[in-house]
């Protein structure tokens, strides 16, 4: 775990970064230790989180081994949130299957139900919703301000519509029954807003290192990252009709809002997303696509920067550290940028050299 001095520095630097006052980039480096100790796999952790027979306190204790199996350098910090993307759909009635081997969860299509049959409402006593609360409280009790806490990864509204209806049905619905799609989207947003406010409220009640989210930026004010992967499949007109309004509401609800721009298919909507009022953009190029430092993505970085938004990208290995140089050189600044880097303990020196290069305290 981190020293008090380090925690204070992180809190202070992140606050400066959110306020566009930090004169260096945020660079997080999280390295997997060679000796993983008693840490269990990502899939096993996921399984435990959803297993109601395991007390939340026990899950929190188990995470200690996971936190201790990592080295946190630069702006990295231990954190917890309840996976996985679109969990709100399960709180609203979707069934799910966990693939422990791959560490993934599938929220299943609500087959046999027509669009108008889907009238989701979030109940306070919903078991999964309550599990989210129990986990936050258990992690607060176990770790106090040693870690940052995020709310469960609720998901994007139209992504949940798609997940409930199945991809084909949801896309056809846009033509066949647009009003019902909007009604369902709105019902999900109502549940989202309730869950968001309640979870954030619980995080605020006890001391932790701060708020975080499924993308681990540290904040002393509520922070969450919005998304709509569904938008990759639709054009600008339908984006405006079915997605943009909800994103506007999310950007206004979330004090420190970010948007997850995922893959080439989403780029066509970037201008409208920026208009929504998000505080920052996360760019994911997508596996198989051209790398982060490809010239083809220059326009994205420049648009985000010129709009005065924060920008975050991932560096998934030591080989990808060059992305930091590329974006800094391209934009001519080290400010307003965050790089979340992962690697192995044996590459520690290489990562540390980048921290030194950009004046990031180790």
């Amino acid at each position, binding site marked *: 775990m981190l020293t008090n001095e380090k925690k204070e520095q992180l809190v202070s630097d992140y606050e400066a970064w959110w306020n566009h006052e930090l004169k260096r980039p945020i660079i997080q480096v999280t390295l997997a230790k060679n000796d993983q100790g008693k840490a269990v796999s990502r899939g096993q952790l996921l399984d435990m989180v959803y297993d109601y027979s395991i007390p939340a306190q026990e899950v929190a204790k188990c995470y200690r081994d996971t936190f201790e199996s990592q080295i946190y350098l630069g702006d990295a910090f231990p954190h917890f949130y309840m996976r996985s993307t679109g969990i709100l759909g399960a709180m609203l009635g979707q069934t799910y299957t966990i693939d422990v081997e*791959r560490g993934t969860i*599938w929220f299943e299509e609500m087959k046999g139900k027509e669009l108008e049959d889907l009238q989701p409402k979030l109940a306070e006593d919903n078991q999964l919703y309550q599990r989210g609360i129990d986990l936050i409280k258990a992690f607060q009790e176990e770790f106090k301000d040693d870690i940052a806490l995020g709310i469960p990864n609720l998901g994007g509204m139209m992504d949940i519509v798609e997940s409930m209806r199945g991809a084909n049905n949801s*896309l056809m619905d846009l033509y066949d029954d647009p009003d019902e799609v909007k009604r369902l989207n709105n019902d999900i947003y109502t549940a989202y807003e309730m869950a968001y406010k309640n979870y954030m409220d619980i995080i605020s009640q006890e001391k932790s290192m701060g708020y975080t989210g499924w993308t681990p930026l540290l904040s002393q004010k509520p922070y969450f990252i919005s998304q709509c992967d569904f938008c990759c*499949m*639709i054009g600008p007109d339908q984006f405006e009709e079915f997605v943009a309004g909800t994103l506007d509401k999310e950007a206004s609800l979330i004090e420190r809002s970010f948007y997850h721009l995922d893959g080439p298919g989403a780029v066509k909507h970037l201008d409208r997303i920026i208009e929504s009022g998000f505080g920052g953009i996360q760019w994911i190029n997508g596996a*198989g696509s051209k790398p982060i430092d490809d010239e083809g993505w220059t326009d994205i970085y420049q648009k985000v920067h010129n709009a005065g938004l924060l920008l975050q990208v991932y560096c998934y290995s030591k080989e990808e550290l060059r992305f930091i140089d590329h974006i800094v050189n391209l934009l001519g600044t080290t400010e307003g940028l965050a790089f979340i880097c992962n690697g192995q303990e044996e590459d520690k020196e290489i990562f540390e050299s980048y921290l030194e290069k950009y004046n990031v305290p180790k």
Partner: protein
Amino acid sequence: MEKLNEISELLQKGRAKNVAILVQEALDEGIDAKVILSDALLAGMGIVGEKFKKEEVFVPEVLIAARAMNKGVEVLKPYLQDSDSQGKGKAILGTVKGDLHDIGKNLVKIMLEGKGIEVIDLGTDVSAETFIEEAKKNNADIICCSALLTTTMPEMKRVVELVKSENLDVKIMIGGAPVNQDFCDEIGADYYTDDAASAADVAKSILEEAKC
């Protein structure tokens, strides 16, 4: 022919009911079923595919156009039996094991059918063994594998290995967001395309080459 153009236009707008009505009218006027299929339905779907490649239309428009095409084909079916209009070749299609995403696969199916290729859709979460088994059973010309998750891409390699070990005379096409030409070359698959419409173009050329 005006009627055929009209069917094609309506298909592109996804007007399924109108397409079915006009196809019936065309038949009543004595237009050959095969001509209606190729010059109205498949031609219309071809235009949708081209517009999709150029990002002039998007996935929902492709889906509703495909639904309209299928409505038209339903009307034509009794008149097409014993004809060779669906005999352009056979493809096995599926999303690989561990992956439940299906929209990319479904688009490929639409585009292949739009080229008159018979598609056996195995759905999602399909093991390499099932691809091979179905390819043999159906005497397929092509196996098309789709994936959205990087974690499931190795299953495509297994398909290639099994095809080689069984010495099957079948081409393997791969696609999906995390897949690219480098990966295709690395695992020894035959073709990679980065969108569904291009996949259908490649499949068609494979089948035409096989006929030569």
